């Protein structure tokens, strides 16, 4: 594993960010009635589950949660020597007229989100798609206008030790620290 330059979020901070995102989502959508949660595989899925659990706790409701495998919509498939393995999209509910909360761990180039938007729109006709990410690295050259807050920084670490199923989380170069944003697409 590469040497960490800085840890930008610890377990307690992670928990606080999840809580804040959950409240932001509720505030923006005036409750949980119209929302469905979709996590981008693989890491977004875990965060989606955490956020959904928090919202369910606060509102006393049961949310619909799905996961999205964007592999088939990637824009770099043609150049690849081998096809990435498919994990499968698992959304067994109707997206029509729903406010879809799309969740991923890190926003960087926006390519993943572009692919996710294309796939979601093929799956149904949501009323809105709102993006929630744990960390916005503040560098989105990809067209689409998705942006959270930006702050200069160098390294980030997402500590998901409290997430289910995680085991191989490392560090990656970053541009912005632990700013989690909710943005309309």
């Amino acid at each position: 594993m590469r040497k960490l330059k800085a840890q930008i979020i610890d377990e307690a901070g992670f928990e606080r960010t999840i809580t804040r995102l959950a409240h932001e989502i509720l505030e923006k959508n005036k409750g949980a009635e119209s929302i469905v949660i979709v996590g981008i595989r693989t890491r977004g899925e875990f965060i989606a589950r955490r956020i959904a659990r928090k919202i369910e706790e606060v509102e006393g409701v049961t949310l619909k949660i799905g996961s999205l495998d964007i592999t088939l919509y990637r824009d770099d498939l043609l150049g690849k020597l081998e096809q990435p393995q498919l994990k499968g999209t698992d959304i067994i509910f109707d997206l029509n007229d729903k406010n879809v909360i799309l969740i991923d761990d890190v926003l960087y180039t926006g390519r993943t989100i572009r692919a996710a938007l294309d796939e979601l729109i093929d799956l149904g006709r949501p009323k809105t798609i709102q993006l929630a990410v744990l960390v916005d690295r503040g560098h989105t050259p990809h067209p689409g206008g998705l942006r959270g807050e930006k702050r200069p920084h160098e390294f980030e670490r997402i500590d998901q030790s409290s997430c289910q199923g995680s085991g191989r989380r490392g560090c990656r170069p970053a541009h912005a620290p632990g700013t989690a944003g909710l943005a309309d697409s």
Partner: protein
Amino acid sequence: MPLKTKHLLGLDGMGREDIQLILDTAVSFREVLERPIKKVPPLQGKTVANMFFENSTRTRLSFELAERRLSADVLGFQATGSSVSKGETLKDTARNIEAMKVDMVVMRHSAAGAPHYLVRVIEANVINAGDGGHEHPTQALLDMYTIRERLGRLEGLHVCIVGDIAHSRVARSNIYGLKTMGARVSVCGPSTMIPRDIAELGVDVYHHIDDVLPTVDALNVLRIQMERDAGRLFPTLREYHNFYGVTRQRLEKAGRAITILHPGPINRDVEISADVADSEHSVILQQVLNGVAVRMAVLYLLSSRN
């Protein structure tokens, strides 16, 4: 973990991991087929030529649909009324099609080994859609997918292939694939339809269908191919039906739930009785649907391997 091969010529010699990868990938495409928009973009910009030198409706349509649902551009080609009837060789036909910048070729041909020859003369990925009496790998893969979907596994199951084994490429591919996946495979038919040395492939041979039913989990019932002069292999269709037809009485006597597969098109009341073909044990129409997903998986996995 990618496929170890650039072409899909047959299941003979294909490893367990490769078969497993194709079947697992097909699960994702099966989900795509349930969506309101049944189309995904991974083969955008690729061109696939379907070269069918032999008649086919089901397989050709299934491949074509799979290609379109992956957003590939599709070239159709049928031997009748084409340059083949003007005497062009397979090599020249294929090279001319490839000159149009085709990335993948799906071929059916009446000669066993034709796709094996093709990979030596062109660069494109080649998928065998049936070569003579040799192999029909995508049919066997969709059969295995369907059995796995219905029964949850392949390993340890007993699958019996009933009918004209000697002239069946479907039987051969199924035997190779199922054996690799750890199933017990048997064949059943009159001795005129069973190759003498078939046991060398590691299958059990039965000449009476009632002997095999008590232990079998799935029956793959082959079509009696009247167009290939099947009439000389047994006295009458009625006699064949009496001895080998899969009927409700036979299945009830066996006293177990047996999954019924058939590669189609079916001859009702010849190799299979109409009520069995339409019963809840029959997965014949699921096979057709799964065929599209399995072919999508094969095209997707091979498409990057140039």
